């Protein structure tokens, strides 16, 4: 994208007036998407965005500017803007660092077919097949929307510490959303598959299966009763979303919250924060999961980070700036939505390691409770630890059996409390994709978990 000598001159310009760290992050992203709705291919969309973000750090202050102009002149202008704001806003200039020579590039070559190489007609065929499969599931399915999205994102990172890294991330996503209509009104069902691969995702993923899952979810809820209200035992199905740990502790372990004393997990490293059945890992390098990459958006290779080991908190998640403050290295968790954003500490693929219980046994040994087959999104306040997560497919457990389907509801809990309530973890591990939003930036993440039980969670239904 940008020649190395140019990067060196731009970094030199960025530090000309002082500052102790400078970085160029360049990105070239191509998106394509297609939507089938109401039985018609409604919209094919193509998008192209490229540009660079330049930051200059001087002590505690970061200056940032971005540009869509990747010429040397454009980059030098952005570098000057970033350095001027840093100089003007903070203490005097630090020791200027001149990059002698950038290191050898790290990263990986492109892989997979994405926008530009996938025939548009092929994506439409998938959408039509999904629409048919969903409608064939039941006559009460009254509406189907299917969407395909592909993206190719090339990134280049160079900084004044000599890092030169590049990555090419090809991602593919397919989703189906259904509406079913019954006597009690409308209900919805949704299912999605998303991976960091190209069009070859569909060698493993059946769009018909996704469509049937989404349709069945909507149909099941037509006869659903209102979810209970109050505290009950909860069984989460393997691969039901994994968002429980993402919200209950993932965000609270992000070092930007820790250094500002804005997390319930401050000062907890080395302590028992969860049931001994809980071993939680964040790993940006796992296979082709949705949150996978070769290097993060600060040029650090993805790595496996054990956050909780058998219930003991072992570490937080770090980006460059927060790690530097603590005199340590980034854990490969510096990510950003686009070149127009500053990086911050983000999760990648966050998952609970499988346990030794049997999924069916867990249900059989639950006299009364709620079984969640699929979760929706969630939200957390890291300072108090209070979090919610929503169900999109759930059933009542009575005498150890799944009985009636339940209407959608949010569940609410407090992270540190909930983590101690995990009393069974099975081996049927599965990952699911999601989009994580923080401070206005969205990034793709993976969540994973096997079937597990919580001894009590507050369920926010309408039944008394």
């Amino acid at each position: 994208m940008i020649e190395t000598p140019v990067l060196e001159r731009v970094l030199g310009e960025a530090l000309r007036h002082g500052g102790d760290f400078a970085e160029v992050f360049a990105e070239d992203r191509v998106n394509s998407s297609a939507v089938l709705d109401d039985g018609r291919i409604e919209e094919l969309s193509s998008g192209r965005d490229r540009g660079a973000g330049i930051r200059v750090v001087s002590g505690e202050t970061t200056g940032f500017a971005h540009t869509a102009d990747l010429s040397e002149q454009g980059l030098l202008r952005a570098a000057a803007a970033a350095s001027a704001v840093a100089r003007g806003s903070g203490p005097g200039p630090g020791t200027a660092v001149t990059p002698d020579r950038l290191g050898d590039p790290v990263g990986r070559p492109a892989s997979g077919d994405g926008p530009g190489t996938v025939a548009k007609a092929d994506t439409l065929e998938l959408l039509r097949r999904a629409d048919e499969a969903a409608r064939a599931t039941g006559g009460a399915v009254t509406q189907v929307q299917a969407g395909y999205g592909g993206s190719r994102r090339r990134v280049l990172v160079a900084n004044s510490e000599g890092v030169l890294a590049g990555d090419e991330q090809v991602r593919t996503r397919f989703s189906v959303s259904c509406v079913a209509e019954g006597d009690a009104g409308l209900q919805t069902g949704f299912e999605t598959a998303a991976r960091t691969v190209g069009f070859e995702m569909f060698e493993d993923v059946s769009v018909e299966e996704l469509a049937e899952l989404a349709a069945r979810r909507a149909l099941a809820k037509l006869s659903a009763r209102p979810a209970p209200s109050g505290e009950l035992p909860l069984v989460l199905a393997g691969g039901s979303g994994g968002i429980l740990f993402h919200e209950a502790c993932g965000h609270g372990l992000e070092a930007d919250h820790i250094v500002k004393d804005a997390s319930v997990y401050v000062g907890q490293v080395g302590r028992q924060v969860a049931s001994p059945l809980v071993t939680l890992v964040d790993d940006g390098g796992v296979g082709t999961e949705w949150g996978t990459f070769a290097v993060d958006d600060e040029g650090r290779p993805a790595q496996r980070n054990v956050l909780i080991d058998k219930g003991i908190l072992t570490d937080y998640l770090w980006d460059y700036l927060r790690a530097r403050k603590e005199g340590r290295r980034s854990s490969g968790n510096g990510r950003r939505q686009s070149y127009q954003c500053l990086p911050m500490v983000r999760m990648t693929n966050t998952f609970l390691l499988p346990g030794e219980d049997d999924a069916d046994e867990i249900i059989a040994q639950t006299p009364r409770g709620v079984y969640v087959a699929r979760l929706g999104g969630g939200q957390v306040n890291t300072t108090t630890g209070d979090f919610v997560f929503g169900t999109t497919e759930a059933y009542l457990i009575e005498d150890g059996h799944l009985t009636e389907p339940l209407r959608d509801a949010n569940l609410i809990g407090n992270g540190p409390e909930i983590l101690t309530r995990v009393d069974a973890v099975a081996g049927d591990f599965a990952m699911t994709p999601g989009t994580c939003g923080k401070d206005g930036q969205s990034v793709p993440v993976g969540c994973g978990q096997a079937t597990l039980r919580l001894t009590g969670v507050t369920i926010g239904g309408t039944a008394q």
Partner: protein
Amino acid sequence: MSRTLVETSTPGSDPGELLALAERVVARSGTGEGVEVYVARGSDTDIRAYDGEVESLTSASSAGIGIRVVADSRLGFAWAGSLDERVIAETLEEARDNARFATPDEHVQLARPDGVPAVPVDLWDGRLAEVDTADKVTAALALERSARGADPRIRQVASADYGDGTVEVALASTTGIRAVSRRTSGYLSVSVIAGDGEASQTGGGFSVGRGFHDLDAGAAVDDAVTRAVRLLGATKGPSGRSTVVFDRRVATTLLSVLSSALSGEAVAKGRSFFAGRIGETVGDPVLTLVDDPTDPRAYGASAYDAEGLACRRNALIEHGVLRQFVYDTVAASRAGVSSTGSAVRGGFSGTPGPGCRALALSPGPQGFDEAGILAAVGEGLFVQSVTGIHSGVNPVSGDFSVGAEGLMIRDGVLAEPVREITVASTLQRILHDVAFVGADVEWLPGIAAGQTLAVGEMQISGV
């Protein structure tokens, strides 16, 4: 390197220049081909203060184009984050190619001028361009310092931000649409932490305006501090049925969620519980809901919609009776009605769809503010913030379940704080159970006004 048609970093310049660019692209349309070009550019400054210093200062400008092509009743779309001439040519070609693959649909068409005159709304504060970055930095630092010292129970300022921006948009089409608009905006936002360790509580406050000069740091800090401090000592509240009073900010969120069920597209596609109910009673007679982007006080005020038609006042619910939905051109055609001038889009990278910009409820006959409603309710729950709106509110089915924190209402006033509870009902029930609509209208950021709202009989889940 190819020539750039428009310099993208001139603050405060004339959007007419963008319109000229849009018209040049429209002029490249082929025979029988409809082309709509949306061009936008903007600039932003964002400053975050922390612990007496500037944590980050971002200054940036950006521009982009979105092109819709309609050929043989088929739509194609492409966008690019650049106004480079070569990129624009590629984008037009890509939109054309995309159109070839869509299903022909007689309702697919570009907007045509409908004779409704645009109501001018002045959204541009020319003074913003003259504010030095140093003064903005000072504002951010002062906000942080003021929050830190506002109350001895505040132990941390998690974030204190100043931000401003400009946006200019031009829209032109082969169907005769020509529209330009520009707006400036500014905000101060602060989030504080009160108390210690496990007893910590958070609160946020903000002030928004059209620029730098109309921001009120004192109000933002007071709001943040009050919200955090009054929650100190909160415990998990009791389960049961209760009247719920929603804070103005929460009410804004509720109206925003409700608005997706009022979209003419959602209705036409069977994704709204309002489908087929025009003329029916859908709520308590106290409910009158209007979307009026021509009200210059509204945060989402606008002269034109996202297809270049004049924005207009649309009464959606009157005295509890459902009157109409909001439409863009395609959804209106599908329903056999005219566009209500309600197209919205997420910038140059999105395509238009129907949506609201400036929803507000008519104040109830009593003219109550928050205190008046609390007194009238007597006993219940006051909700100051909700979580999980996107995971717990389904505008298709109407199922409603959100996390909440707030204070109990006892003897008509706020009493002890509660947290980690949920509040549940259905959107359909909520509309019928509205007891009081406040007259304390405040135009908050987003697509709806804030006004205190009381809803009878919701299910609370707690201990």
